[in-house]
């Protein structure tokens, strides 16, 4: 049982008062002992590399000529903010893609989870397995499969569109899913739908945790399906949606695998897929500018932190915690 005392909160969570009983101190001691191995691992493999990467952001360091490492102060940071327009452009491309894929992915995941939770759907276990199965396929393999499926010349999506719906989809004048800069974000979003399994499972768990008496009471009050959805279901699973949103935002700041596998990270079509994580990779591991790459990595980290804080800040207005004392 939570021993929250007082009304002050940190990011929406109740702040706990310093324990003063010997039992609490005993528990706290064991708590520290149990998490110490993790703390050591975190320090060695996360915290120290982070400190090191900040150090790298202050030097000019090329992998090919490591002996020519040179302290450059804030030059890399100035380059990222002032001299390199690609950094801002890459962030904008990331945000533009996020603006499409994040809501679309979230709505699709909720839709599928609602479907998988519906009493009107038969063979739900089998269907859930089917929807989750793609998650178990390695991302690289899945992306390569999609590149074949969406090939404008030989992909079955275009062939299907042309042969069944009569749309001119195949060939030079066809639909170029992977080469058209106007289409590419929707293509990536479509590919993301395929991997909806994780989000679906989490939302499904949230849906199954909504007390049925709430629905029964609403039905007695005459609420229709949509009213029940918007007044009960979505508010009750809002913590789950919030969690998926946070994970989604962080994931998009790191969105790399698909553009790398499909286009080798060259940003094609026409630079549209040069997201910030791709630009970070190019600078660090293709151009070997490790110092500048470290700077971009820190910018990604800082922007990710800012967005996460903003989301936590907004949570109080739309996320409902039934167990919260606030």
């Amino acid at each position, binding site marked *: 049982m939570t021993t929250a005392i007082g009304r002050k909160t940190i990011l929406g969570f109740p702040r706990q008062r310093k324990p003063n009983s010997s039992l609490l101190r005993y528990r706290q001691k064991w708590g520290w002992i149990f998490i110490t191995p993790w703390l050591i691992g975190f320090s060695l*493999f996360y915290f120290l590399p982070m400190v090191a990467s900040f150090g790298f952001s202050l030097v000019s360091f090329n992998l090919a000529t490591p002996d020519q490492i040179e302290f450059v102060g804030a030059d890399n940071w100035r380059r990222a903010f002032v001299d390199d327009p690609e950094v801002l452009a890459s962030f904008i491309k990331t945000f533009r893609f996020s603006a499409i894929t994040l809501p679309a992915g979230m709505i699709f995941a909720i839709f599928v989870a609602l479907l998988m939770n519906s009493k009107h759907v038969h063979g739900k276990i089998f269907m859930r397995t089917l929807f989750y199965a793609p998650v178990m396929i390695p991302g690289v393999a899945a992306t390569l499969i999609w590149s074949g499926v969406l090939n404008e010349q030989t992909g079955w999506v275009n062939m299907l569109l042309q042969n069944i719906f009569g749309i001119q989809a195949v060939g030079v004048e066809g639909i170029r899913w992977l080469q058209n800069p106007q289409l590419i974000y929707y293509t990536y979003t479509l590919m993301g739908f395929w991997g909806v399994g994780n989000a679906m499972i989490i939302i499904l768990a949230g849906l199954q945790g909504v007390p049925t008496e709430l629905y029964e009471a609403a039905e007695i009050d005459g609420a229709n399906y949509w009213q029940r959805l918007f007044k009960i279901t979505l508010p009750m699973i809002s913590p789950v949606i919030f969690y998926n949103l946070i994970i989604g935002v962080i994931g998009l700041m790191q969105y790399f695998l698909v553009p790398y596998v499909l286009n080798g990270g060259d940003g*094609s079509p026409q630079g549209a897929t040069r997201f910030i994580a791709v630009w970070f990779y190019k600078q660090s591991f293709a151009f070997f500018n490790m110092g500048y790459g470290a700077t971009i990595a820190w910018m990604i980290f800082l922007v990710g932190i800012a967005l996460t804080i903003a989301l936590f800040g907004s949570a109080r207005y739309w996320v409902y915690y039934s167990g919260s004392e606030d």
Partner: protein
Amino acid sequence: MNKSRYFWLISLLVIVALALVACGGETTETTETTTGTDTTAATVAPAAPTTAPATGAPVRIRWFVGLGAGSDEPTFAPQQAVVDQFNASQNEIELVLEIVANDTAYDALATQIAGGNAPDIVGPVGIRGRDSFKGAWLDLQPFMDANNYDLSDFDPAMVDFYNVQEEGQLGIPFAIFPSFVLYNKDLFDEAGLAYPPHEFGAPYIDADGNSRDWNMDTLRELAMQLTVDRNGNDAFDADFDPTNIVQFGFMNQWTDPRGVGTFFGSGSLVADDGSAQIPTAWEAAWRWTYDGWWTDWFIPNGPYGGAEFLQGPGGPFSSGNLGMMHNHLWYVAPWALGDANFSWDLAATPNYNGEITSKMHADTFGILRGSRNSEAAFKVLTYLLSPEVAPQLLDIYGGMPARISLQEPWLNNYFETNFPAQNIDKQVVIDAMAYADNPNHESYMPSFLETTDRYNEFWNRLANEPGLNFDAEVATLKNALQAIFTAAR
């Protein structure tokens, strides 16, 4: 000892044990790359330092292959044979071969250099591979002077090719790959067109016996006549359907904007003062190509890049549905043209404004500055480049010898062995050498890889989008390159 002390002692031991497990080093054994060895394994193989050995033990020299030719499986055994031959010939140096797949070789080498585990010798490597690791190469001049290395069998221009300002002599000529036009004789015959001239500087004599200057305009006209749609119309016909092309006339296959630009003349994206520039001839070549993609239709554009009828083992030309292309000697190889079911031959490069430029590729071996045994590495290098051993390696890599004395016999043997059924005019290859580009189209640029990435993006845009404001695109590229050059300072 009370209960509390036991508690802290056990806790401490557990923590230390966990930390030791977490930080434990790998016990990967050093394995050498041998014939048929998986190339991925080769990238992580030798971790052993090449420090001076104990008395009596041979010095270990690591030879890294992957930046250029030599990372295809069939080349493993012959390369290892050269290594074995060297090791058997003496007992002071142990040469170890490391082969890394080309697509991961750049990362692997960079990681090894950064980790203080640099190999000694790298090669064969072209200009692009060399400049991707600018500053990492050893100046060979002191070693050449100390050993009185004989350069008399090389074209001085080829020796100078490897002399880089402020870095020194980074290589000794090994293999060269001149460029020329390759044409599909069957398609010319089918269209009733005369073949392009084989002699550099000679005019084109058409089927009616009329003489015309063999220049870019003539090439364009021939190429448009060779470009055919599904209904059999060529690119000059009013009814020509550009959405249903089944045969193209020409392309500069497998090169980048610098290579395409050099087709019209030598140049560099870097001006003498270090700023970005677009050479006039290159802009003309790019415009010519852009028109060829989107208005004259004789060059396969981006959307046609994946067309099934252009997929041959050696890309579009080997598919048999491309009339002409410009490429290097390395393309004239069994892997590309061995199974070609059409007749082909070589022709002269056309001129632009009266000047002919046949871009050159050249491979060599270099020694890294990180080598801990550069003296021994130079001994190995001279062995690999010697008149006795170089021909063996050239046969493996398919390169033409940079040694003048070896060139003609090599060419005769190469064509007779690999293409006995084709009557190839090898004189075209020899003549092309005189028109090599200077500065070379692969030469140094500030922030080499980033600059390459940026101009490739520009090129992809042109190849995939018709109706662009060409001048504006070129201006944008120039500004972007300038920003990269400025940052590189």
